[in-house]
């Protein structure tokens, strides 16, 4: 089971990333839950300085930008296997 956290205060890009995660999960048939972290005080705990940040299974995978769809799919599949 993947635990995906989208980290951001709710700016348009953070919402886009969240949508993209849901899309990929559906298309790749992954078992995952997507959480949102919106409290700025918690961002530093994940090591996020630029939003949106993406944390999968407690690992920070990207921040400050939205990954391309197939990159995101690859990341999530890799994490699901390991």
């Amino acid at each position: 089971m993947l635990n995906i956290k989208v980290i951001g205060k709710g700016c348009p890009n953070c919402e886009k990333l969240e949508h993209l995660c849901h899309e990929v999960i559906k298309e790749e048939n992954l078992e995952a839950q997507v959480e949102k972290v919106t409290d700025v005080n918690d961002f530093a705990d994940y090591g996020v300085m630029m939003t949106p940040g993406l944390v999968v299974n407690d690992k920070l995978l990207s921040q400050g930008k939205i990954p391309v769809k197939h990159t995101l799919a690859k990341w999530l599949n890799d994490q699901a296997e390991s």
Partner: protein
Amino acid sequence: MEWKKEIRILFWFIAFFLFAYFMPVYSDRFREAIMAMLDLTRWYAQEHVILCLLPAFFIAGVIAVFISQGAVLKYFGAQAKKWVSYSIASVSGVILAVCSCTILPLFSSIHKRGAGLGPAIAFLYSGPAINILAIILTARILGFEMGLARIIGAVIFAIVIGSVMSLIYRKEEKDKAERQMNVPMDEEKRPMWQTAFHFFTLVLILVFANWGAPAEGVESGGWYWIWAHKWEITAFFAILLVFSLIYILKLKREYVLIAAAITAASAFLATSPMIPMVVGIAGVSILTLLDKRDEDNKQWTLSTWDFAKQILPLLALGVLVAGFLLGSTHGDTDMPGVIPNQWVVNLVGGNSVFSNFFASIVGAFMYFATLTEVPILQGLMGAGMGKGPALALLLAGPSLSLPNMLVIRGVIGTKKTLVYVILVVIMATISGLIYGSI
């Protein structure tokens, strides 16, 4: 049924009804204000959208997509030298803070995991104040001098306020557990100079396309020469942009040349320089969106589009409101708004301590959507605001607002927020006084 929501809708209905019912349609003052509102909106549309705002959005897009922000972030780490952190923090707003929602997370990380309170505050202040879109529009509409004063003021403010805050709270800072900050580093795709070349080509196109006419009667000298030849110079940089698109962004050469040829043809056929600008922008957008080789090229135009979507509606609203309330003043036009000029002169005219202080306080608490401070200030200055108070408002305004104070308070607490606000207001007042007297 959600009562709260329904009641809110009812409230707006009543508000609009009362407005419509009592609207002073036949009063001269009201009619003049409506005309001023329409006139100011038309002036913005004619003078500023195509040649200035559209290219500026593309420049902001370059910053968001092509410039690696990780490279800057490493200077905010706990190990970085203090003076380096301060100087980077005070100018990095230009490349980091193109979107206001990135500022607060960065601020909180620098404060908690990185270089500490001082640089964090410096960044918090300078981020919104010197973002590239704001500087471009300030210099274009309020004059080059005001644009420059805004940059210099913002950088000095950032360093001074940051240092003072960290001095006041130096004890607390020492006790803080030092934990390493996670700095994201993506590998650079291309050498720095290539990105810089692309970036400055766009900036120079913007600068020369908007080169202001010299004062009446001036017909010689370097500035006049540049103005007289500004379209040739702009065209030269447009050719550099074609090279940049082919060799730096690696777009397909044939397509780029076709787009360039169409743009050039439109430049020779059309009488207005706006036509080739629009054709060129459409060309760049289509080329990058269809590019299959590098995802970043497409992202460039998409993020440009995001900026446009975010900023244009609010700016348009800001122009309408400013025109209605404060009138339309530009060139030879001078139309009054609903608010009598005398009020503006009484409150913020001249360069008294009160005017500057009042402008600072209002600026600090009022919320300005991105860039809307510019048309509002244009209106105020047209109605008689002094240039000192205008700068005070510019320096206290965009970085601070009531909603944003509440968020900052959540990160650093009430006391520090209060000190920060007071420092900003005092410094804005002083710089207004200085600027107003030179």
